[in-house]
C-alpha cells in the first residue's frame, strides 16, 4: 500500500509535466479527434489532482468536484464533441494556420513564458510553481489554439483548454472555490458547449463550411 501511495504521490507531483505533454501533443495534432482525446486526458489529470487533494484533506466538497470534473469534462463534453463531429460529417482536418513544427515551437515558447510570468507570484505566495505555470500555460495554449486553428470546433476545444487552465489555477492557489460556485461554473461550461455546438450546426447550415476564418462578412 505504501508503494502505491508513493507511486501515486510521485505521479501527481509530475502532473504538471503530463499537462505540458498533452499541450505539446495538441499543438502537433493533425486531427480534431486527437485534440478531443487529449482534452479528455487533461481533464482526467485534473480530476486525479482533485482526488488527491480530497484524499489528503478529507473534504466531501472536493470529492463532489472531482466527480463533477470526471462526469462533465472527461466524459460528457468529449462525448458531445464526438457526436457533433459525427453528425456534422465534417473532415477531421484541424486546418491550422501554422505548420506542426511552428505550433510546437509556439507552444514551447508559451510554456516557457508561463514559467516566467508565474515566478514572482509563486515565490511570494509560496505556491506550487510547476502547477501554477501549467495553469497559465493551459490558458495561453487555449488562446493560441483558438487563434491559429480555423475550424469552428477547434475554437471550442481551445476555449475548453483555456477554461481547464483557469480551473487548474483555482486548484493550485485556493484548493478550489466554494462548492456552489464550482457547480455553477460547471453548469455554465456545459451550457456554453451545448450552445456552441448548436451554433456550429447553424454555421454549417447557413455557410456550408466550418472554416471560421472565412466568416468575414461583417467588417469595419
Amino acid at each position, binding site marked *: 500500500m505504501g508503494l502505491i501511495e508513493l507511486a501515486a504521490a510521485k505521479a501527481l507531483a509530475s502532473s504538471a509535466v503530463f499537462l505540458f505533454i498533452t499541450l505539446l501533443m495538441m499543438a502537433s495534432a493533425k486531427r480534431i479527434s486527437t485534440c478531443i482525446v487529449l482534452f479528455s486526458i487533461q481533464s482526467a489529470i485534473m480530476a486525479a489532482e482533485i482526488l488527491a487533494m480530497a484524499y489528503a484533506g478529507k473534504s466531501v466538497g472536493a470529492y463532489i468536484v472531482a466527480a463533477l470534473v470526471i462526469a462533465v469534462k472527461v466524459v460528457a463534453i468529449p462525448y458531445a464533441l464526438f457526436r457533433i463531429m459525427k453528425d456534422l460529417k465534417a473532415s477531421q482536418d484541424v486546418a491550422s494556420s501554422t505548420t506542426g513544427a511552428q505550433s510546437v515551437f509556439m507552444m514551447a515558447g508559451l510554456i516557457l513564458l508561463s514559467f516566467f510570468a508565474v515566478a514572482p*507570484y509563486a515565490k511570494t505566495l509560496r505556491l506550487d510553481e510547476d502547477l501554477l505555470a501549467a495553469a497559465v500555460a493551459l490558458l495561453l495554449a487555449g488562446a493560441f489554439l483558438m487563434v491559429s486553428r480555423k475550424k469552428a470546433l477547434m475554437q471550442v476545444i481551445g476555449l475548453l483548454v483555456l477554461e481547464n487552465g483557469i480551473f487548474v489555477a483555482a486548484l493550485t492557489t485556493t484548493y478550489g472555490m*466554494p462548492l456552489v*460556485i464550482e457547480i455553477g461554473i460547471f453548469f455554465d461550461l456545459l451550457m*456554453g458547449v451545448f*450552445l456552441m455546438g448548436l451554433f456550429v450546426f447553424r*454555421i454549417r447550415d447557413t455557410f456550408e463550411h466550418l472554416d471560421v476564418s472565412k466568416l468575414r*462578412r461583417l467588417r*469595419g
Partner: protein
Amino acid sequence: MTLVLLLLVPFLAALIVLTCKQSTRAVCVAMSAGALEVIAIANAVWRIRSNGVLQSGRYLRADGLTAFFLLNVGLILSLVLAYSIGYLRHIPAGRFSSPRWFYSLTFLFVFTIMAVYLSANLGMLWICVESTTLASALLVGFYNTKGAVEAGWKYLVVCTVGIAFALFGTIALYLAAVRSGVNPESALDWAVLMNAAPSLGATGNLIKLSFVFVAVGYGTKIGFVPMHSWLPDAHAEAPTPISAMLSAVLLNCAMYALLRFDTITSHAIGSEFSHTLLLIFGTLSITVAALLMVVQRDLKRLLAYSSIEHMGIIAIGVGLGGPLGLFGALLHTFNHSVAKSLMFFTAGNVRENFGTLRMRRIQGMARSMPWTSAGLVVGSLAIVGMPPFGLFISEFMILTAAFSASRYLIAILLMVSLSIVFGALLHHFQRMLAGKRVDVPVKLKLLPSDFAVMGVCTMLLIVLGVHIPGAFANLLQRALVVLQ
C-alpha cells in the same frame, strides 16, 4: 421574498410563454409577465429605499447601487416589450423564429440580468454574467441569416473567452482574500470583501493582477476598445428590441460588475491603479469608436459604435473618480440607455419601412416617416450631448470632473471625439432625412405603442436634461454612497 420574486417572474414567464401555441396568446402572456416584473422591480426599489439593504439567503443581496440599476432595467424592459408588439409583425418565419421563442428567450435573458444585479457573491456574479452571454447568444442569432449566425458565433466565442479571463481575476481576488485571513467560505461575498479591503492591500500585486484580468474580462462584455470586436456585429444583427436590450441593459450590467470590483480594489490599494486602467480603456474606446463612426454604412452598426463610445465616456467618468465623476458616470448609464433605446426603436421603424439599414439607400425619411424622423433627430441630438437632453448634464459633469482633476488631455480628447461623433451623425442623418424620394410608399403604420414608446423616451430625456427629479437624484446619491 422581494428579491426571489424578481428572479422567479421572468423564469416562469420564459417557461409559460413557450407553451402558448398561438402568437396572440404568447404576446398577452409576455405583456402581463413584463408588467408583473416591472411592478416587482418598483416594489424592490421602494423596499431598498426604506430599508437600506435587502438580503435574501446567502447569495441574493440588493443595495443602493442595485436599486439604481434595477430601475434602469425596469424602464427599458417595459419600453422594449411595448415596442415589440408592433415589431413582431415583421419577423420572418423560420426555425426558432416565432413570437413565443422570442419572448421566452427574452425573459430568460431578463432572468439572467436580474441574477447579475442581485448577486451578493462575486463567484455568483461571474456565473450570472456568463449566463447572460449564453442567454443572449440565441437572441443575437435569432434571424438565422448568414450575418446573424456569424455575429452570434463571434459574440459567443469572444465574450466567453473574455469572461473566462474575468474568472481568473475573480480567483486571484479570492486567493488574496483567503491569504489575508478572510474565512474561505465567505471570501467571495462582496460585503465581506469590502469590510476586509484594507487588509487585502497587503497582497499588493495580487490585487492589481486580479483587477487587470477583471477589467479585461468584464471589459470585453462592456465593449472597451481592444476587446470590442463582437459588439458592432451582435448589436447590428440582432432583432431591434434585442439590440436595444443589449445596448441599454447588458452593457450597463457588465459595467455594474466592473464597478463592484473597482470599489474593492480602490478600497484595498487606493484608486490610482484601477482608475488609470479605466481611463486608458475609456479614452481608447471613445477615440476609436468616434473615428469608426464616420465610415459606417449600416445604421445599427453606427448605433453600436455609439454605444462603445458612451461606455468609454462612462469608464472615463468612473476613472476620474470623485463625487462629480462618479455621479456623472452613473447618470450617464441611465441617460444613455434611454437615448440608445430611442435610437434603436427608430432604426427598427426605418428597417421595416425601407427594407434595409444601409444609410446610403435611405432617403427622404422626413417626408415619408415624419414621426420616426422626429424620433431620430431627438435621439441623435441626445446622443451627441445637446443641451435640452439628459446626456448633456452627465457629459458636462464628467468634463468638469476632468478639468478639476487637471486631466486636460482627457478632457480635450473627450471634446474632440464628441465633435467627431456630431459630425458623423450629422453627415449620415442629413443624407437620410433630406432628399426627394417621393416614390417610396409608406409601408409602415405606426402603432400607438410605438408612439408611446418614442414619446416616453423623449420626455424622459428632456426631464432629465432640464431638472433631475428629487427622488431620482436621491436614488443616485444612495448608489454613490455604496461605491464610496
